[in-house]
């Protein structure tokens, strides 16, 4: 990462409501032109953080800098930040044009400039010609776009989006995701996006900040948080994960070994663990390979785990399997249909062998 100055700098931010602490010690930098997503389950504080940034809440402690200036004490009107609300909150008594022009009117700009910029915003969200329409007559997706146009017309430094797609149906949601991403790049505006949908976060963001119970567990690119989660929570929240609680039997600088299902398994010692350390090993379902006995030679099965298929779910692109190991533990595998492996016909109760791609395990220190 080159040394770009952050646009938004949040330091040691804390927010409590009475005795209830919602956000603890938040430190976050947002860079100009990036699409940052705040991801987390309901109640984790991500919306509160958004409200603190926009100015609708005041922090109990800590500060927020926008472009180097402290904005913690400024009311929402004076911060160069606008919000797209989850409920869209379009002004019902104003038509589409007036909704979009509202922010410009507040600044008392000349009428023709208002017209130009409002039309520009409407074009950017592909609502040209919708000026005179009544907001109540618009579809969910169209209302969404008006809400966005209304917020970007003023060219704010940062656009905050509070779960804007949560009330749209699946297909529309997918379309809007790519449209929003496209719009953000076109405008080169900084977006801070809040969602609880990890798939959405992965597909749209430049970086993701994963929240849990009021603090940030990890900030990284989608690839980073998915492939190298830094905590059990992140591993489990983003994507699926098989989690093994194990103890290191042997370790050196390069590799660490442990015992799974009475077999010794060794992998890269990514966390500099020593013998005796307790760890979690995380393996994603798509990294697990399931073989039927006819497909493997005897000697290979020495390093594989025997298992029985306990559940099969056909998903079109993949077939998801639950396999029960000898000890009774169940792990999940997801196999893709591709040209290399035409044979993916499984049966319940079938005896199989299970292995995973070496190097794709994630080792994390044991958390209570």
């Amino acid at each position, binding site marked *: 990462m080159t040394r770009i100055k952050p646009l938004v700098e949040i330091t040691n931010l804390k927010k409590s409501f009475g005795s209830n602490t919602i956000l603890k010690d938040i430190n976050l930098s947002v860079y100009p032109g990036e699409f940052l997503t705040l991801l987390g389950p309901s109640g984790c504080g991500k919306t509160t953080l958004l409200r603190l940034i926009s100015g609708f809440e005041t922090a109990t402690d800590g500060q927020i800098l926008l472009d180097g200036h402290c904005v913690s004490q400024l009311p*929402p*009107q004076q911060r160069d930040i*606008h919000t797209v609300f989850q409920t*869209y909150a379009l*002004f019902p008594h104003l038509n589409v044009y007036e909704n979009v022009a509202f*922010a410009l009117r507040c600044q008392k700009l000349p009428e023709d400039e208002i017209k130009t910029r409002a039309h520009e915003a409407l074009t950017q969200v592909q609502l040209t010609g919708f000026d005179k329409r009544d907001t109540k007559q618009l579809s969910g997706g169209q209302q969404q776009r008006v809400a966005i146009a*209304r917020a970007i017309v003023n060219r704010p430094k940062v656009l905050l989006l509070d779960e804007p797609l949560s009330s749209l149906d699946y297909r529309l949601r997918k379309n809007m995701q790519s449209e929003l991403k496209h719009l953000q790049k076109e405008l080169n505006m900084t977006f801070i996006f809040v969602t609880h949908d990890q798939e959405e976060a992965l597909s749209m963001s430049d970086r993701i900040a994963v929240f849990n119970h009021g603090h940030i567990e990890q900030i990284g690119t989608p690839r980073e948080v998915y492939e190298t989660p830094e905590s059990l929570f992140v591993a489990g929240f983003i994507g699926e994960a098989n989690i093994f609680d194990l103890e290191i039997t042997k370790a050196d600088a390069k590799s660490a070994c442990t015992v799974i299902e009475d077999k010794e398994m060794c992998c890269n010692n990514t966390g500099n663990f020593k013998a005796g350390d307790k760890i979690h090993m995380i393996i994603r379902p798509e990294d697990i390979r399931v073989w039927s006995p006819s497909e493997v030679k005897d000697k290979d099965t020495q390093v594989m785990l025997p298992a029985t298929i306990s559940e099969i779910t056909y998903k079109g692109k993949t077939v998801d399997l639950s396999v029960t190991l000898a000890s009774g533990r169940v792990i999940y595998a997801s196999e893709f249909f591709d040209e290399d492996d035409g044979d993916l016909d499984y049966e319940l109760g079938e005896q199989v062998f299970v292995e995973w791609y070496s190097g794709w395990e994630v080792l994390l220190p044991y958390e209570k």
Partner: protein
Amino acid sequence: MKQLIKHGYLSFVFVLLYLPILVLIAYSFNDAHFSLSWHGFTINWYHILFQDEDLWSALINSMLLGFGAASIASLFAFIVCVHLFLQSQTKSSNFLHSTLLMMIILPDIVLGISLLVFFNLAHIKLGFTSLFIAHITFCIPFAIIVIQSRISTLNVDTYHSAIDLGASKLRAMTHIILPMLWPAVLSAFLLCFTLSFDDVIISYFVSGPDFNILPLYIFSLVRMGVTPELNALCSITIGLSMLLVLGAHMLSKKETI
């Protein structure tokens, strides 16, 4: 057959409802003082009505009182409802809800005498002031109910959105909240005006000798013995109300089209 029963019953009830009113109007044109038999058409009573100074002053007083009390009660209700709307849960809203509920359940007569006791102890002379205070007080719960029921359908995010986009609190209030709410405030005003204009019970206890209001004036007349002048007054009131209500109905129909 079903339709016959339906139309028959509806008409029957409407006839019952409007019969006394029609009687009133009819007899306002009757050229007789106390008799019920028809003595000929006249608009004499209307002439006398327009010259009755006591009646006029009572009418004007009632209108002033009604207008004033309704305005302030609606304003109070507006402020309270908007404040609660923007703040969501607060302790003070429980106090408010309990007080309002109590005021609605409490019979008029108990509120009337309570205020009488209060004014007596506070040495507030009975007259316009006491009436004004009393009317505002009993109108507030109704105004709040009307405005609250409309406000509960609004999305509070629209206000926040306005602020977020750069509007001052005042601008957000006048340009966003008020346009969404003014029909409810107007309804509240009209309701309060009606309640105040027609109030007998509470006014009975807290009015004084030098500020005469219409309901009490009529009350005293009715007990003494009435002249058709009163019928004339009733006819005019009813005529006006009908016009007002029908007009409002037409207006609301036009808006939806």
